[in-house]
């Protein structure tokens, strides 16, 4: 206990008072004094700082030597205005900087949403650096403003930085159903159907010509009456394409030239392919070496949706 008080801070006093008199004062005022050293002429002792006023008033020739501990350090610092100003300024600076946001970082699924959030923050007045007043309120306001565009958002603070995580709202695109027939755009052999609605008029492995109706919008019911149907889907078929490619002879080895031509041909064959379409088979018909040029003819079997025009 005494040790703690010493660390906290105590006044060291000296006085020429008689020990008996000091003891009477201790009894009267209920003081608590420590480290009492009594010599013939003077008494030295420590007492808590809060007893300072009473001691100074009650003992006639008492004088304060020093204040120990943290309180003593504090009192000594308070006598130097420059230090006080420094401490106050440092505290203010620390408070200011720790409550200032210098950067807002974002992570999410779409660049467009990121730009939208940045724009909204600018409109709301959150342009770094800004004073960090209420992050939760900012989050709520931002969520409210972007409720139609952002599905989920979380704002976290990391030091002097806000980090915003988000996911964009996805909207299902509803395409209205139509009753248009699916008509073959080119010749081919039916490979498979991806149909949601409609009446198939051809079967897998049927050879169809351009202009043939593949999926109809009419269906006969049990009483032989025509019922109108929606038509939606794709019909995939094997189609054929012949590609001719040529290039000038060059000093590189013949197999490399062969592959160069092959890849050029593949590129040409697949340039119009869409999602789900691919090269099914590749047959090299001819690899010719004329004077100065080499050429290649390749026959491709493609798997294509033949109902959707390109």
């Amino acid at each position, binding site marked *: 206990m005494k040790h703690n008080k010493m660390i906290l801070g105590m006044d060291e006093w000296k006085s020429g008072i008689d020990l008996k008199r000091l*003891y009477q004062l201790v009894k009267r005022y209920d003081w608590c004094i420590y480290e*009492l050293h009594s010599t013939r002429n003077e008494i030295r002792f420590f007492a808590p700082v809060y007893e300072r006023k009473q001691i100074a008033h009650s003992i006639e020739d008492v004088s304060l030597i020093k204040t120990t501990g943290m309180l003593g350090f504090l009192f000594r610092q308070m006598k130097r205005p420059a230090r006080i100003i420094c401490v106050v300024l440092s505290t203010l600076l620390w408070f200011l900087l720790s409550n200032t946001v210098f950067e807002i970082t974002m992570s999410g699924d779409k660049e467009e949403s990121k730009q939208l959030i940045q724009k909204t923050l600018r409109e709301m007045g959150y342009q770094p650096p800004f004073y960090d007043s209420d992050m939760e309120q900012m989050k709520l306001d931002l969520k409210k403003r972007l409720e139609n565009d952002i599905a989920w958002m979380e704002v976290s603070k990391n030091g002097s930085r806000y980090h915003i995580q988000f996911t964009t709202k996805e909207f299902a695109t509803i395409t209205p159903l139509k009753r248009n027939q699916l008509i073959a755009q080119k010749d081919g052999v039916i490979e498979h159907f991806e149909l949601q609605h409609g009446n198939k008029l051809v079967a897998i492995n049927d050879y169809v010509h351009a202009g043939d109706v593949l999926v109809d919008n009419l269906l006969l019911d049990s009483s032989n009456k025509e019922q109108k149907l929606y038509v939606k889907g794709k019909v995939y078929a094997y189609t054929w394409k012949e590609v001719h490619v040529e290039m000038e002879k060059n000093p590189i080895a013949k197999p490399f030239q062969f592959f160069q031509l092959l890849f050029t041909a593949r590129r040409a064959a697949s340039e119009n392919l869409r999602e789900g379409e691919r090269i099914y088979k590749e047959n090299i018909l001819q690899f010719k070496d004329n004077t100065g040029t080499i050429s290649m003819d390749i026959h491709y079997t493609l798997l294509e949706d033949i109902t959707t025009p390109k």
Partner: protein
Amino acid sequence: MLTMMKNQLMIEQYEELLQASPNDIRLRLKDMRLIISGKDLKVCALTRDEILIEGTMEGFTFDHEA
């Protein structure tokens, strides 16, 4: 009441501190005087009811005549 520790002596309910020097400390208790003799004796803490003495204590004298 006297409580003795390694090199400390706590005295409760004492009446008066009569003398304090490094070689002896004199106290008045309720119905006697206590003289503590030793080396480097000092009063570590002094309150209205308690006194804590520290140092090398060599002898205790109880004087009932006082």
